[in-house]
């Protein structure tokens, strides 16, 4: 397991999960991986600071039992992931150890010092060459392909190479293991044999594409409030901050389930193990309508839960984004869900404290903002060298201390993301789901995607949405006013506006995650539902009295609400729509 460079050292100090090592001989590289030998175990660690002959290492494991004088072997390599066919459906820890293979040997618990290959060395893949002898390839261009869980997995030319390589040999179509040599390329006069997998240092952005392009297409999540009100672009970024219990994780799960993308990578970073367990058990049972396989077939789970070692938590987010970048190189559409980036930031804070760095706000390190920006900037829509497009969309949750969005992690994140889906404690207390605050949240993509939305959804889409948002705003103002002056203190017209905003909120922005039909609304249904609702929002009603208005809207709201529970081809649906149309046509005089 330890492919050692010649550098060795010994432990001179231990403080939590940080150890201080003195180099006995050889050189040291910042961020290289080293192994500490404790009894018969080798614990993985990473160099994070070098001071003269001493270096500071964060250990990715529990440090109990380490003592002064223990031997440390340096590898000379930065922390890397294995990339190649066989990742999909995988459940890994933050360092890409397959959790399924750790189980046999270790019973219920994760014993430290156990590392396994992320990719199976035994599995046979049907390789189909795409490149021909004599072809000139850039880094990351396609050599061939295999079928991986309904997805065409491209085998890439080395991602780290500089300049162009010439294909000297390539094997014919056939069955190969990932360790078999499938091609030989010449680069800078040297012949390099290639296998189907390679390694990539997780903290480095993968840039083997022609150019990054402007994202202007909608990522469909099937959550009405997201897609209609605060849309996220393919290749864009969004954050979901919220106080505890406001439904961040439930929302993330829904996004991972229903978003129409090729691949989903879920990074459970410093959160509860139980949440991952639900995904692990649920996803293999859910059919992916796009491929006919299960949802698990298109998913990779990176799982470094809150009780697992904190240094590996810092690595887990990078592991996730690196795998996403890899699949983007194949021209695929990848969604990364990182839950929660605050735990990732806290892992940085813990280590910064042990390094005795000068703390910034709330003891977070001064480099917090640049690290967050660096992470989100790895998302994006790109054109590959062959003209195909690939996208990585990154949606991160943020867990602000005290639910206060003024804290450093939320603020640093807001500076770099395109959509802000802020969850509100008040809405979740009132059992409004998703608890995305429709007044505070925003999406910069609604302007960025204006043309495509108005072309693909409805020609008036963005203007209707803006109108609806105005109604929400006014409705909320009227609501506030009513708490001060009472219902008798406002005009009938204002009351109607208020009731309209309630109608929009209750029957469109809220969605029942636990109902088989209402949980996911495809985009056609969103358009037709919204247009019907929009008629109600913009109709002129005439009522005699305020109670009349209330009674009418209560009935109308119930119809809209009940309609969400039926498919559009059902007779109940048609009946409800008919009744709604009738009510609207009556201008308020007709009570159904």
């Amino acid at each position: 397991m330890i492919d050692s460079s010649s550098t060795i050292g010994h432990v001179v100090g231990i403080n939590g999960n940080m150890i201080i090592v003195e180099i006995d001989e050889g050189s040291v590289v910042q961020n290289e991986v080293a192994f500490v030998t404790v009894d018969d175990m080798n614990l993985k660690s990473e160099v994070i600071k070098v001071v003269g002959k001493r270096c500071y290492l964060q250990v990715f494991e529990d440090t109990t039992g380490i003592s002064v004088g223990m031997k440390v072997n340096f590898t000379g390599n930065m922390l890397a992931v294995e990339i190649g066919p066989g990742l999909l459906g995988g459940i890994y820890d933050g360092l890409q150890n397959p959790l399924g293979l750790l189980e046999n040997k270790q019973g219920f618990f994760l014993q430290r010092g156990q590392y396994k290959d992320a990719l199976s060395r035994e599995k046979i893949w049907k390789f189909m060459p795409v490149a021909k002898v004599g072809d000139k390839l850039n880094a990351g261009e396609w050599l061939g392909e295999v079928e991986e869980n309904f997805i065409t997995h491209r085998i890439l030319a080395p991602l780290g190479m500089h300049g162009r390589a010439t294909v000297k040999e390539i094997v014919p179509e056939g069955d190969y293991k990932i360790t078999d040599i499938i091609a030989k390329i010449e680069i800078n006069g040297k012949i390099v044999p290639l296998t189907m997998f390679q390694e990539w240092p997780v903290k480095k952005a993968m840039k083997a594409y022609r150019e990054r392009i402007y994202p202007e297409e909608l990522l469909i999540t099937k959550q009405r409030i997201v897609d209609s009100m605060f849309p996220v672009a393919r290749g864009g970024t969004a954050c979901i901050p919220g106080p505890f219990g406001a439904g961040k994780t439930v929302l993330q799960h829904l996004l991972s389930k229903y978003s129409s993308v090729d691949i989903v990578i879920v990074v459970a970073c410093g959160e509860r193990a139980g949440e991952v367990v639900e995904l692990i058990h649920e996803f293999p049972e859910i059919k992916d309508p796009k491929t006919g396989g299960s949802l698990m077939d298109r998913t990779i789970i990176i799982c470094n839960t809150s009780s697992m070692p904190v240094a590996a938590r810092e690595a887990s987010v990078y592991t996730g984004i690196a795998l996403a970048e890899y699949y983007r190189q194949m021209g695929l559409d990848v969604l990364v869900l990182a839950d929660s980036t605050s735990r990732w930031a806290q892992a940085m804070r813990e280590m910064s404290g042990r390094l005795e760095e000068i703390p910034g706000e709330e003891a977070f390190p001064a480099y917090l903002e640049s690290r967050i920006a660096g992470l989100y900037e790895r998302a994006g829509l790109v054109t590959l060298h062959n003209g195909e497009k690939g996208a990585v969309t990154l949606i991160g949750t943020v867990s602000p201390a005290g639910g206060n969005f003024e804290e450093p992690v939320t603020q640093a994140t807001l500076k770099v993301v395109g959509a802000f889906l802020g969850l509100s404690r008040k809405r979740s207390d009132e059992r409004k789901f998703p608890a995305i605050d429709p007044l505070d949240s925003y999406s910069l993509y609604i302007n960025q995607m204006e043309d495509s939305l108005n072309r693909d959804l409805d020609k008036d889409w963005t203007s209707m949405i803006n109108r609806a948002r105005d109604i929400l705003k006014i409705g909320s103002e009227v609501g506030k006013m009513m708490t001060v002056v009472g219902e008798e203190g406002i005009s009938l017209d204002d009351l109607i506006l208020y009731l309209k905003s309630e109608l929009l909120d209750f029957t469109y922005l809220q969605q029942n995650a636990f109902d088989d039909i209402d949980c996911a609304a495809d985009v056609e249904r969103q358009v037709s539902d919204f247009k019907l609702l929009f008629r109600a929002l913009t109709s002129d009603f005439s009522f005699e009295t305020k109670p009349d208005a209330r009674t009418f809207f209560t009935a109308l709201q119930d119809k809209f609400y009940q309609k969400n529970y039926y498919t559009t081809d059902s007779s109940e649906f048609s009946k409800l729509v008919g009744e709604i149309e009738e009510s609207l046509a009556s201008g308020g005089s007709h009570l159904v």
Partner: protein
Amino acid sequence: MFKEYTRINNIIGDIIELEAQGVSYRELAAITNSNGDTSLAQVIKIEEDKVSLQVFAGAKGMSNRASVRFLGHPMQVPYSQDILGRIFSGSGEPIDGKPPIEGAQENEIGGPSVNPIKRIVPRNFIETRIPMIDIFNPLVESQKLPIFSTPGEPYNDLLARIALQAHADVVILGGIGLKFDEYIGFRRKFEEGGVMDRTVMFVHTAADPVVERLLVPDMALAVAEQFGIEGKRVLVLLTDMTAFADALKEISVAMEQVPSNLGYPGSLYSDLASRYEKAVDFEGAGSITILAVTTMPGGDVTHPVPDNTGYITEGQYYLNEGVINPFGSLSRLKQLVVGKVTRKDHGPVMNSMIRLYAKALESKKKISMGFEKTETDEKYLRYAELFESRFMDLKMDIPLNDALDLGWKTMAECFKQSEVGIKKDIIDAYWPK
């Protein structure tokens, strides 16, 4: 092997520093003070031959010539069947007047975490006969759930009541900074309720050394883990976790760590999580359910301890003014049992009743400000009154299905079918005729 050191260089708070060789991280040491007092201590930092230890009994009265003997292993806790019915101190010594456990297996505390894929999805509803819990935020086996309480609320009574009514195979109480009277209160209730013979208590009282607080959750959970692996359904009660966090704060300040928020260490989240995450449903074996108490200093939920806890645990019960508050209280695992293990109408009743109560409070507020009462307000006021007396009162002691029936009855007494926001087929099946 067990070399003895008798020269302590520094004593800072409850931490001592000395020069020693061959010591490993987290190793345990036995300290004998010059006056004969003894205590255990644990290595928390090593820098070349300078070793820092936290002294469990505290460093008050510690001589710099006290003897320090390293034991070659981290902190352990005994485990055997004989441990049931026993009471131990915060450092693991029996305090019930009975002899130490003989022939017990020693287990390290704070062991590794469970492999996520060895967990199963929780699926067993735990009926507590408290409607605010059973209907609105049901407790699920293997859940970790704190009671967020303002000081002075009857949180320990609530904890004891749940422990008695929840039918666990083994109950483990971890008392952290308990008042002596509270400790006796638990003991009496458990004896009267007939659960003492399947209970283990680790009790640190407010008068005991602060450092010992840190051990209580780890010992309680290490024992729970052993019972769980053997197939027992274990309920762990930890009260009060704020006292635990305060002990963490004291140690980290003495260690000169940069505090993150109100003096608490930046690792507070991880420190709490590594304890709460011991809650588990083992595949093919037993389970550990954790019910904890987190008192909120000044009743402030944004205080770092309840705030970090809220992110870790699977929900929380807010206890204030003698009732479990329906807003803010949450059981994140409820959807695993609601309507699946429990009745089909459970979900809609749960959601609608809360939503209606929220509206009712708005009406109440409006009227208290002197506004005109509308017909709608009348309905809501009536509903609020019934809701508070029939559901929120902590004295209510009824099974879930009776509570659900009462919910339908209450809604039907106040509202029309179209006003409750429930799917039609459920209304048709359950609306009282």
